[in-house]
Each structure stands twice: as C-alpha cells, then as structure tokens.
C-alpha cells in the first residue's frame, strides 16, 4: 500500500516537474525529437534496403535441366529428390513443350524454326526452377541437384549470385551498424542534455536528501521524468514517420525509380517504427535521468 502510494506520488511529481521546469524540459524534448527523427530516417532506410535485398535474393532461381531422354518415372524420382533437399523453398516444373510454346509465341523466327521440329529433334529440355531458402547455400544446393540422376545441367548465375550475396551482406551490416551507432549517439546526447537539466536541479536533490528521502525515493521521480520526456520527445518523430512515410509511399506508388525497387508497405511498418521510436525515447530518457541523478547520490 505504502509502496503504491509512493509510486503514485512519484509519477504525479515527475509529471508536474516536467511542466514546472518547462524550459529545461523543452531542451531535453527538442534534443530527443531531433535525434529520434534521424534514427527514424536511418531505420526506414535500412529496412527498405534490407527489403530490397531480400526481394532480389528471393528472385534468384536454380534452373535444373533434365536429360532429353528422361522417362516419366525418372522425372518423378528427380522431383522427389529435389523435394527432400534441405534448402529448398519452392520448385516448379516446366515441360519442354511449355517452353517451346512460350518461345514460339514470343517471336516469329522461333516459331518458323521450331514448327519444323519433331518431338525427338526438339533440343529443348524439361526444367525444374528451384528457389532456395538461404541464398548463401545456393552453390551447395545446386551441386546436390546436379548430382541427381537424370539432371544434365544446373544453372543459377554462378559468380554473380555470390557477389550479390557479399554486397547485400555488407550493405545490411553497414545499415545495422549505422542504426546501432545512431541509437548510441542518441542515448549519449539525450542523457547529456538531461544531465545538464538535472545538474541545474542539484538543489532540489539536496533538499530531498535533507528531508530524509532515500536514494531510491530521489531517483524514481527523476527516472519517471526521463520517461515522460522521452515519450513527449518521440511524439513529433512518430507523427513525422507515419505521415512522412505514408506520403512518400503514395507519391512513388510503392516503388522507387523502377518496379524493381519496392518500398516496404507502410502498414504495419510505420507502426513498428513508431513503437521502436517510442521505446528508444523512453529508455534513453530514463537512462539519461538515472545517469544524471546517480551523480548526486553520494555525499
């Protein structure tokens, strides 16, 4: 009961304190606002880059060409074997008949040439298009498919895919590094700003000590104050993120420059980013206050 009462009082006091020390609060809130906007932009950028990379990776396909003389039973065995492999996300069979028709439809020249082929003469092979779960292991999977009896050739853009994987991996790491670095810088900046505002209230802390407030009694209102400052500071970045990203998405019709670069859908993406911003704001605000008030705890 007593604990609850004190907690209630601490929350009330810290809320009052935000407004009573409004100039100082405003300094902290602006600092939180500005840094969270930067964090928001970097999160949006890195998630979109990541999304783009994933989409491209998903499109990478292994094409397994089957022997021209393959029997129906052998085809079933090939399919079963492919199905049983670890790294297979999905696969699709395209018969040589389908490919031939498709090619004939695509150009008159092909049509003229292919029309004269008999079933035996047709050099086109049945294929399996296989998509993998983990692109890093695509080489190994391709080798496994190549080893299946009845599969003649396997193609997956060797060399280029490996390069792509390296490039995307690096980009991802840089993005994650940037976001983490930015959050750390934000934490430092905000906690320093709050620290300055609390140093200005050293007298208040001294009085609290004087009347018999325990260390925890002194810390908690300041930590709640940090929480409020963080939450207030994240309002503008959240609004900017939701409205800004939505507008951007609408303006570019969900894709940047070409259909190849798809933007992440704002719903529920902006909701998650907002939640992350709020959590960062609150945690960093609390951390800043705790760090600052700790300095005054010792005699």
């Amino acid at each position: 009961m007593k604990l609850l009462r004190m907690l209630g009082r601490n929350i009330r006091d810290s809320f009052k304190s935000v407004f009573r020390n409004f100039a100082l609060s405003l300094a902290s809130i602006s600092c939180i606002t500005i840094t969270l906007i930067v964090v928001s932009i970097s999160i949006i950028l890195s998630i979109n880059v990541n999304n783009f990379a994933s989409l491209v990776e998903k499109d990478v396909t292994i094409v397994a060409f089957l022997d021209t003389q393959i029997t129906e039973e052998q085809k079933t065995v090939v399919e079963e074997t492919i199905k049983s492999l670890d790294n297979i996300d999905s696969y699709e069979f395209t018969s040589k008949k389908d490919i031939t028709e498709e090619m004939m439809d695509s150009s008159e020249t092909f049509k003229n040439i292919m029309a004269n082929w008999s079933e035996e003469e047709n050099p086109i092979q049945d294929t399996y298009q296989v998509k993998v779960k983990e692109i890093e292991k695509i080489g190994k999977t391709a080798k496994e498919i190549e080893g299946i009896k009845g599969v003649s050739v396997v193609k997956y853009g060797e060399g280029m895919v490996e390069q792509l994987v390296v490039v995307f991996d690096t980009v991802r790491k840089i993005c994650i590094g940037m976001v983490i670095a930015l959050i750390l810088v934000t934490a430092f900046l905000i906690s320093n700003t709050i620290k300055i505002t609390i140093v200005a209230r050293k007298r208040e802390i001294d009085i609290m000590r004087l009347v018999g407030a325990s260390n925890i009694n002194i810390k908690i209102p300041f930590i709640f104050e940090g929480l409020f400052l963080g939450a207030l500071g994240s309002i503008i970045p959240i609004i900017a993120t939701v409205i800004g990203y939505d507008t951007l998405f609408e303006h570019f019709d969900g894709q940047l420059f070409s259909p190849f670069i798809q933007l992440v859908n704002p719903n529920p993406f902006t909701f998650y980013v907002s939640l992350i911003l709020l959590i960062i704001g609150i945690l960093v605000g609390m951390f800043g206050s705790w760090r600052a008030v700790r300095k005054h705890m010792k005699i």
Partner: protein
Amino acid sequence: MDLIRMKGVKKSYKNGVTAIHNLDLRIKKGQFVFIIGPTGCGKSTLIKMLYREEKPTAGHIIVGGLDVAKLRNSRVFKLRRKLGVVFQDFKLLPKSTVYENVAFALEVLGAPKDEIHAKVVKVLDLVGLKHKAKQYPNQLSGGEQQRVAIARAIVNGPKLLICDEPTGNLDEGTSMEIMKVLVEINKMGTTIIMVTHDTEIVSALKKRTILLDSGRIVKDFEEGTFSYEAIKNVR
C-alpha cells in the same frame, strides 16, 4: 538521558585542515543549545557531522541511538528522518507551494494523504503561516520563508532540530520572531541545536551555550549563565 553523545571526534579535510580536534560533547533530550564562536571555528562542521553531511575522521557520534560515524551513504536517510535541519538560506523548493514544501518531508516517508494534510495544517498553524499555504516561496518575506523551513523540519515530529544560522539573513525583529517559534518548539520537547553569530539572541535567551574556537570547545555555559564578559575573558 543523552540524545547526542560525541566522543573523541576529529574532523580533518583532505587539504590538511583540521576543523574539529578531539571533541567530547553530550546533549540531553529536550535541551536548547547554542553553538557560537568566530568564523572558521568549526561550528558548521560540528553540526554537519550531526546530520551526516560530513563524516568524522575519528571518534564516535551517537544521535538518537544511531552511530552516525558508521552510517553508510545509502542509509543516511534513516538519520535524516529522525531530525530536522534549518539553514540560513531556507533551502525551499522554489517551484512548490508552502504547503507542498512542508508536505514533501512527509511524502518521502510514504505517509497517507489525510495524515499529511492534518500534520501540515497543524505545523503551518504553529509557525503562523496557515493562511499562506498556497503561496510560493518567492511571494514570502525572509522571515516567512524561514518559518516554512522550520515547519518542514518539524512536521514529522523529529527529536532533534538542527539550525545553522537560521537568523543570519533576517533583521532583528524578524530574528526574534523566529526565536519565539524555536523556543515554542523546544517547549514541546524537541531538542534544538542552533549555530549562530548573533550574541544578542544568545544573551537574550540564556540557553546552554557552547563556545568553539579553532575546533575545540573553550567554554560550555550552562543555562542562564551566558554573558558577554565571559566570552571576552575566554578570548
């Protein structure tokens, strides 16, 4: 019965200055004690050790059964809840009202709202400021601010009230009003230790008076025995 017992207390600072030398002192419950002496004689250091703003370098200080010298920083609040402190510069929260300033001392103890209200109103009445409960410190005169500080110091009924030059910033008339309040509080059973420069007050009240010089007690006047001449002789 002794409320305060100091034995062999010494306080040296890091810069080599020794403010208090091997000091022994006993103060009984309910006494009113003045501590006087020239600037730099160790008066403030002595009382700062009583509320554990400073830690003695050697010796024992027992305040209300608590060994202050051994008290860890994180436990200092236990001592502070047993005593009240009043300063020359009042130390009020400028952005809180008179009522809030006084209530604050009870809120940190986790007292229920009704109890806080009853006690704060009672103590504001005692210092004559009930009608100014909703005002802010900067709307009050110096004497009134000091009375708020006294109200805050005594609101949780401490056994000991430590006053560090409470009249230092006030004119003669206001000082005497503050003294009246302090005497009243003392009559209710609270032990009071007051550091002062104002020998007029000391002389007028003739309470037990301890004269310090260079960190040593040079004279301990029993109640009713203080006189200017005696100080001159000692010096």
